[in-house]
């Protein structure tokens, strides 16, 4: 049994990376491993958007990540600097920036890049999808 970390750096519907990452995550779990965490960086931060509304016949990637979290208690961390630049913020960040709305909510957590390096240290394997 090994601990896997996933680094996701592509946006849903613009890159196949999140799809690949999600399928990989399920295969990792199916082989009896654990996932120590998923870190969303670069355009990957868009995976956390609660305002994502794809057509009904397409997978809602945010919901698929949430399902993964609910079933396996996997931490979903989003790089805060990459997120803010790209229009993604939590309720507390929205307050801090004087915004009326927010589009990142638990189980997605905004966090620093240090969390990625910590994940890389903690996990036996770090696999990048970009």
């Amino acid at each position: 049994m090994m601990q896997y970390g996933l680094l996701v750096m592509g946006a849903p519907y613009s890159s196949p990376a999140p799809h690949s990452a999600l399928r990989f995550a399920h295969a990792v779990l199916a082989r009896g491993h654990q996932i120590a965490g998923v870190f969303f960086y670069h355009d990957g931060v868009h995976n956390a958007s609660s305002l994502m509304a794809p057509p009904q016949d397409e997978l809602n990637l945010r919901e698929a990540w949430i399902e993964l979290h609910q079933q396996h208690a996997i931490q979903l961390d989003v790089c805060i600097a990459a997120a803010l630049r790209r229009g993604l913020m939590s309720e507390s960040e929205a307050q801090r920036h004087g915004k009326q709305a927010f589009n990142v909510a638990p189980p997605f957590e905004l966090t620093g890049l240090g969390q990625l390096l910590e994940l890389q240290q903690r996990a036996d394997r770090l696999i990048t999808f970009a």
Partner: protein
Amino acid sequence: MATPDALLVIIRHAPHSSNWLREGLDAALVAAAFGQPVNLLFMGQGTMALLKEQGSGAPGQKATLPTIDMLEMYDIDKLWVTEEALQGMHLSADALVEGITLIADQEIPGLLQQHTQILNF
């Protein structure tokens, strides 16, 4: 020869790699729905949108083939691919769906000149 107000949509991206292909085809379909004559030129990886064996992709990733099949209903009947592009991808013409017009690379500049409007995806 293209009609005077025809739109040329150039497709250069493969299925499942990004949303460029889908959003390019959407633009072609909407233009056609508005009554504009539309022709398509497939270049490079875009050629792969025409492979008849392609599937629907990862769970939740829509297939492209139904959209390609829909083009004819919108009177988009010129789908150009160059023989050199096929050779470059090591594909033979019978791997593609019906109704493709094969041209030579050197005809591409002429195609672009003929069309009043061009959208490049």
